[in-house]
């Protein structure tokens, strides 16, 4: 059953249109990928979904409720969290303060302690560095903190914008392993990645976004075919 649906979404900045009718869905526990080259509109898509970029048309549904055009702080309370590109942790605050801020978006205030315990289990390094300044963590640890901060809000849908950015291959594998675990726990996970191969191996479906439109949707098997993936990513010529 569809938990999250983006229907014919259009968005842009000023006089420039960036998205031209994007539609996609995700069900509970599904891991969905969105790949595409620089400037394809990937971050704009997430911005439009979470309310930081103005919509020009279309709708976003979460569990049947139309959340399009709502304010970011209201959307997170409905169960949709974003881990933004570049992590955007509060580097001057401690790890626990960053996590405490993440609790702000919870609907169920009684479960705060349990939520913190769960992310500490998933990311033990955050327990070790609990009182350290977040800006002093390594890139991989900061990414874990950014994901944990979104998770403590207990999202039904978790969006991640370029989670591999600036991370070494070993750390990327570690982060993506955690994302699989998060999806397996029932959260719908939608990952935007410029490095397509990172997400196509894991995602049930990978949408290819180019020039503001979804150009193709690949299954895991499709994406394993390098030629097919390249053609979808760059267009028919594969150049």
């Amino acid at each position, binding site marked *: 059953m569809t938990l999250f649906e983006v229907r014919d979404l259009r968005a842009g900045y000023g006089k420039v249109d960036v998205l031209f009718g994007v539609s996609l869905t995700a069900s509970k526990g599904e891991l969905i990928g969105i790949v595409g080259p620089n400037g394809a509109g990937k971050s704009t898509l997430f911005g439009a979904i979470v309310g930081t970029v103005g919509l020009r048309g279309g709708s976003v549904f979460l569990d049947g409720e139309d959340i399009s055009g709502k*304010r*970011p*702080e209201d959307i*997170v309370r409905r169960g949709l*969290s*974003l881990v933004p590109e570049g992590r*955007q942790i509060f580097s001057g*605050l401690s790890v626990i303060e960053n996590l405490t*801020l993440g609790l702000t*978006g919870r609907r169920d205030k009684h479960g705060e302690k349990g939520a913190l315990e769960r992310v500490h289990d998933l990311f033990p390094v955050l327990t070790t560095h609990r009182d350290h300044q977040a800006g002093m963590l390594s890139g991989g640890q900061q990414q874990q903190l950014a994901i944990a901060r979104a998770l403590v809000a207990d999202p039904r849908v978790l969006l991640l914008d370029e989670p591999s950015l600036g991370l070494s291959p070993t750390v990327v594998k570690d982060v993506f392993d955690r994302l699989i675990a998060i999806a397996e726990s029932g959260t719908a996970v939608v990952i935007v990645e410029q490095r397509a191969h990172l997400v196509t191996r894991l995602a049930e479906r990978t949408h290819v976004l180019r020039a503001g439109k979804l150009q193709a949707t690949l299954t895991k098997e499709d994406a394993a075919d390098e030629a097919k993936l390249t053609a979808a990513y760059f267009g028919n010529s594969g150049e």
Partner: protein
Amino acid sequence: MIQAILDAVSLGGVYALAALGLGLVFGVMRLVNFAHAELITVASYTLVMTHQFPLVVSIVLSVVVASLMALLMELLAYRRLRGSNPATMLIVSFGVSVLLQKIYELVFGALPRSASVATGLTGAFTVGGVSITTASVVTIVLAVVILLAMGYLIERTKLGLQLRAAASDFQTARLLGVRSNRLIASAFVISGALAAVVAFVNVVGNPQVDPRFGLDITILALVGIVVGGMNSLRGSALGGFIVGAVLSLLNVILGNGRVYAYSWMFVIVIVILLVRPGGILSKFATKERV
């Protein structure tokens, strides 16, 4: 000499409170609220107009009036400008400031209104042969208590955490669920309450309130937040304190030359900013523009 130091600490404390009020609003909105002066003025008028009431009632009323006016400023003037560039917001804050001054002039007249407020604080007492004014001691105690309370609010409460996060990156804070309207309104209300405290200690020392009563202290508090570091609430308070204390000491040190106290203070400010262009507590280096 002891009285001079007490006066310096006392004036520094007052400017620290004024700078903190400005710094709170700047932190969440990147708005240099020039109209903070009119919050101090309206709180001062409230104290003067209600001087016949018990002092506590008068103080509470001034806090309520200044906080409400701050909230109205946010709702009516600044809310629609949140996405605007800082220069636009600064110009609007000038407009709000001038408009309110004219309204005060219409309501209270252009000439100063005066009344004795907290007459018990206007005396002096002697310690070890040194005469000390009650007002300076009360001001120091009040400033310390309020600054400690603000420190607790900012460092130890959820509201304070949200204020610090929003000052760093408001958009990310909103993505985590921080309610922007509520948080900005809270910052304005606290700023108004701090303006009322500043008004109280000023009115005790100088109960001649005119429509521009809060202007000088606000300009110097603005200098203070630049000196301390605009991105840091601690920096704002520290900068405000330094400006107030230095000004007070210069008035004593310069003796008959005290007319130049402002000039010398700005020389000191320029030297500080040449050494620390981002302010004393700023963690960020300035960007090269030219």
